[in-house]
């Protein structure tokens, strides 16, 4: 088959890499992912280690000997990471590089550990949204007719529901039931991730359905049908593989949305709970510390910067990916 607009993998990669912005975004995201993965191995103070003598210290990097009890704690929680850290940096650590908060905790360490929550929610919630959205769109598109229309009407209705409000309501009510949930051994954070994903699949469903509607008119589907393939086989073996490009694009655009969603909830005090950290929580703690007496700008600027740059990079990557995959949509 000829490929006039270059939707081959090579063509997409070439167009993607031609944009300087997307290279920059990729590099930035790679760095964030790497830091998050290597968090236990980095020579940083514990993210919840208190240090009253340095409370609200300005950013002033100090290469010092690490606290032994903090190291022991780390070794217990993350043995492999702690071993790697010991091999690379010994007992030394970088403290106070981005300042300290009101309890003397290291802002850089909290940012690095907080990134794990943001990336995790980005991963889990968007996977949940992909599973729901793709199945819904695929079914609605392939079933067509009344059922398909009904399914898309459901999506339309859900679009009109203020889902953010509903999620806040549910999460707040579930918070009260912490003890009840603990009995079922359900992790509150995991529920949060799944709930966020479960309300973020609408656009995916619409996009997939549109694609399915156009794909099912194509000759290869008719051919597969003529050869006696069942409906489910056509869907899974012939249509689904052709959807991945679009799915990847909208997945890239879903990730920043769900990360933002989590930070929004954490900011309101409904997401990650102390002693856990997430970027939204850090941003809200920073704002609380802003008083006329002490202007701890580092508590506001660095979490905000981390969020803005990561989300910006993800958006930019998603946009360039969309343009690269389908140049007709390019803006």
């Amino acid at each position, binding site marked *: 088959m000829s490929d006039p607009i270059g939707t081959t993998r090579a063509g997409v990669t070439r167009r993607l890499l031609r944009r300087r912005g997307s290279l920059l975004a990729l590099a930035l995201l790679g760095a964030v992912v790497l830091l998050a993965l290597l968090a236990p191995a980095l020579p940083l103070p514990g993210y919840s280690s208190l240090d009253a003598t340095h409370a609200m210290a300005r950013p002033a990097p100090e290469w010092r000997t690490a606290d032994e009890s903090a190291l022991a704690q780390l070794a217990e929680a993350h043995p492999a990471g702690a071993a790697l850290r010991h091999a690379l940096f010994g007992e030394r650590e970088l403290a106070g590089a981005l300042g300290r908060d009101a309890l003397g905790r290291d802002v850089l360490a909290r940012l690095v550990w907080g990134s794990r929550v943001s990336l995790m929610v980005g991963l889990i919630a968007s996977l949940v949204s992909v599973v729901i959205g793709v199945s819904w769109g695929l079914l609605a598109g392939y079933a067509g007719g009344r059922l398909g229309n009904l399914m898309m009407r459901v999506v339309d209705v859900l679009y009109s529901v203020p889902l953010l409000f509903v999620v806040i309501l549910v999460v707040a009510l579930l918070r009260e039931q912490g003890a009840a949930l603990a009995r079922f051994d359900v992790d509150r954070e995991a529920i949060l991730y799944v709930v966020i994903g479960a309300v973020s699949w609408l656009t995916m469903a619409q996009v997939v359905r549109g694609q399915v509607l156009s794909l099912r008119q194509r000759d290869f589907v008719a051919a597969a049908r003529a050869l006696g393939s069942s409906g489910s086989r056509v869907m899974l073996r012939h249509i689904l593989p052709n959807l991945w490009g679009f799915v990847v694009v909208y997945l890239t655009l879903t990730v920043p949305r769900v990360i933002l969603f989590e930070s929004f909830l954490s900011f309101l005090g409904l997401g990650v709970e102390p002693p856990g950290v997430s970027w939204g929580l850090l941003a809200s703690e920073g704002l609380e510390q802003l008083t006329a007496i002490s202007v701890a700008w580092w508590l506001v600027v660095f979490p905000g910067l981390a*969020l803005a740059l990561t989300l*910006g990079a993800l958006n930019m990557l998603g946009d360039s990916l969309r343009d690269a995959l389908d140049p007709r949509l390019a803006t």
Partner: protein
Amino acid sequence: MMRLVLVRLPWTAAILLLVASGSFFLVRLVPGGPFDQEKVTDPVIRANLLAAYDMDAPLGVQYARYMRGLLHGDFGPSLRYRDYSVNQIVGESLPISLLLGACALAVALLVGLPAGALAASRRASWVDTLVMGASTLGVALPSFVLAGLLVLLFVFQWRLFPVAGYGSPAQLVLPAIALGLPFAASIARLFRAGLLEALGEDWVRTARAKGLSPRGVLWGHATRVALLPVVSFLGPAVAGVLSGSLVVERVFAIAGMGSHFVDSAFNADYNLALGVVMVYTVLVTLLNLAVDVAYGLLDPRIEVGAPA
């Protein structure tokens, strides 16, 4: 246009009914209620409270009563603020949130449209690069991050604005910017893309060939078409501004509907929470309808009311 409104009205009513029923059963079915706090309430008092707030009846009866109240525009009493009805609280806080939202939308349009037009008219220059770069970052900027940076700069560094509160126009400036600027970024991108696409059309070449100045073409002909994507973005933008005001009202200690909603969720104040959800749903659906009407007026070729 009347036809569009008529076609959409039953649809809107169905959505409202669904949202009301869905959220009603959601809050009632989640375990734990407004009177189940850490402090153990005496069973007699608890029973009296449930009876006073009409929560001891079977669920179906409660639902029927709640729905009847809604039809009469009555959201019931607040379960937390004694002697306050939800209508009173909404009546006091809705104007505040609406004013804030309107100012934020004004910021979004007043910054976004000129920026988009500037970028489109100086395409591929450094102005274009700058506007597009800033908007890429701006689209992603969470409103609470922006709010923090604004407070840091304009309250603590230069002491231009009061830190928080509500009442004077000066107190509205920072919240409106924090809420509106991310949407200005989207509007700038959409308007620029729309203008560039319009400027490539045949009828623009015709207008130029007839001797119209580039500026005349841009403002007289291209703008009208380029506004279409911006107008259709206004629906989601309004919804976004309203939900963004949840955190912005909190940051700036504004007693709008957003603050009340977050508090009511924390306090399991069902009636207040449901009331706010309903008011937001009505607002968003009505504004979406208004956007569709405006769309039809801008581009008579589009028949929005037609079944999809």
